[in-house]
């Protein structure tokens, strides 16, 4: 153009600082790296470990799961009720149900807090590939939530088996062990991932957390008040597919005998999360940041 070009600074090698740009301008001496999803994952890992909310939510989560788990174990072992023939892993359920609220909160905060602070604009300028940012957040959050849940749930399970060993409880089978540790951890991490997608859609921390806690509790509460005979089937379905009941299926102590069983809750949650992510990705691409 007509603008006079100042001489190029230093002897920068002729690398492609501005592909396609017909205007020779400044060329940075810092080598240009083709960024990938893994750069975004490293970035999201830095982000998640460098804020207090992560430590708070995960700290409370571990406290609830391990604390309530051990307390339940101690109460049962101390009162020596008739637990012969029961599965000792079942006691881990209460702590995890409460702890899931923390995972939901962390999941929502991972996405929604960037909208609250305005950080999302900085992030999206640094990485205009919006899908990559959301994918990186999902990967990092899922791994963190899964590992933390797995460690806490396994710790509690081991403690329960040790505490109740002499009370005539059943020796849990290999699959029961797998479901009560890896199974629930995958389920809780997926529930958190669903919250992350909801946070990305709602873009408002408090709103998204409320929606998710409502989704966990509302079906059970609504079902409790369905007295009408004509609603019997709806009530049954709400009970069976409510998230607390799905969680209890991993411990084989479901409220009902019909409905989902075995590993079904995991597939249900996987489907829900996939749908939520499809929506979150589509909206993220379309909407203004």
């Amino acid at each position, binding site marked *: *153009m007509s*603008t*006079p*070009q*100042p001489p*190029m*600074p230093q002897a920068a090698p002729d690398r492609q*600082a*501005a*592909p*396609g*740009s*017909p*205007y*020779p*301008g*400044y*060329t*940075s*001496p*810092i080598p*240009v*790296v*083709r*960024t990938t999803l893994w*750069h*975004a994952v*490293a*970035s*999201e890992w*830095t*982000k998640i470990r*460098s*804020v*207090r*909310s992560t430590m708070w939510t995960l700290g409370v989560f571990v406290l609830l799961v391990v604390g309530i788990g051990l307390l339940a174990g101690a109460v049962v072992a101390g009162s020596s009720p008739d637990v012969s023939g029961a599965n000792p892993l079942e006691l881990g359920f209460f702590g995890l149900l409460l702890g899931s609220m923390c995972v939901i909160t962390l999941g929502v905060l991972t996405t929604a*807090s*960037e909208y609250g*602070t*305005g*950080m999302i*604009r*900085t*992030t*999206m*300028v*640094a*990485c*205009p*590939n919006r899908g990559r*940012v959301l994918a990186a957040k999902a990967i990092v959050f899922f791994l963190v939530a899964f590992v933390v849940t797995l460690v806490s749930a396994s710790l509690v399970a081991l403690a329960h088996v040790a505490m109740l060993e002499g009370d005539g409880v059943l020796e849990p089978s290999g699959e029961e062990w797998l479901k009560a540790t890896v199974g629930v951890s995958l389920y809780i991490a997926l529930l958190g991932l669903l919250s992350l997608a909801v946070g990305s859609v709602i873009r408002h921390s408090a709103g998204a957390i409320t929606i998710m806690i409502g989704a966990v509790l509302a079906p059970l509460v609504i079902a409790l008040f369905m007295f009408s005979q004509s609603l019997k089937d709806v009530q049954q379905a709400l009970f069976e597919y409510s998230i607390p009941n799905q969680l209890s299926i991993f411990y084989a102590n479901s409220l009902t005998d019909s409905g989902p069983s075995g590993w079904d809750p995991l597939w249900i949650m996987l489907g829900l999360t996939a749908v939520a992510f499809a929506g979150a990705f589509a909206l993220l691409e*379309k909407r*203004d*940041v």
Partner: protein
Amino acid sequence: MIEAVGLTKRYGDKTAVYNLSFQVRPGAVTGFLGPNGSGKSTTMRMILGLDNPTAGHVTIGGYPYRRLPNAPRQVGALLDAKAVHGGRTARNHLLSLAQLSGIPARRVDEVLGVVGLQEVAKRRSKGFSLGMGQRLGIAAALLGDPQVLLFDEPVNGLDPEGILWVRNLMKSLAAEGRTVFVSSHLMSEMALTADHLIVIGRGQLLADMSVKDFISANSADFARVRTPDTEPQLREKLTSALTEAGGQVLPEPDGALRVTGLPLPRISDIAHDSDVRLWELSPHQASLEEAYMRMTQGAVDYRSVADQRAGLQQPLPPGAQPPMPVPGQGQPGWYAPPPPQQGGQPFPAPQGTPGPSAPAGPYGAPAAPGTAPGGPANPYAQPAPQAPAGAPQPTAAPTAPAPATDPTKSEDAR
């Protein structure tokens, strides 16, 4: 190189930006000016691919931002000083951005040094002052050592030392051949920093020209003429003589005259011919600020009005001068005179001026109170504080100098 073509953005039925086309070239600092709410930030967001334009497009180096290869290495932006998570330390904030862009981590410490935040690198940005936040945002923009830089109001909240630093930074970045696009509403700052100006108002392009052209196109140079204060009739005599000779004469509140359209020697000759002594005859050039105010006065969305303090005002003691309104408060237009070629710019006819010295332009006839562009008539009909009183009040001593605030403070602020 940033290029916008027919850029339009609507939010619902509000049009934030309408049909904006401009180019920002490398090697120069381009200032982006406009009143609050004129669409500067919306335009910046569209350039960065954060908002999708309703119509038109904007490219950087030929690509829309979201398809630009290695975008963070080509473009750096400071959008909003507080667009960071307050709970994260300055260093971790920049580290996460560096990792996202594939920039080595040691670059983070480099830019922290450049903006002078090394000592607070380990502190959470929540506790940062606005100025420190600006520095952190500038650090983020510089992180990728990019060729194109966008800054939205970079000097907000900075101390004088910081303002000077930003000014020199912009210039040195442009001198390296980079494209630097800076939005601001601080005219004086832009006059010192920018080489080129893009001015928008109500989302539409008002001007796209160099700073120098902008000033000369939007504010005519004028001469200030002062006749002896002791003889008001001389002033009237000179006014009619100058008007006859084709000049435009506007009285100033302190009794001087602003003359446009006549060169200085000619004014002197006319004065001599009509036997009028002059106390002052001086050339003046309007500042960038004046030029800007004049250009955008029709496009300001949020305008303050004079605080009437109705009912709270004490009746003025007899003979007291009513306080002079501050320029810009409820009386737009007390800025540079209109350029001669445009003639008919709204210009408040100073009410309360003795008839003969009123300007002879199309708006020159003493305006009816309701229609005066000098702002809405005072609904409480206090006769006292009218817009700049043109002549010394008859009750005041005839030699009364300019009142405390001179609303025509125009002389070259640069």
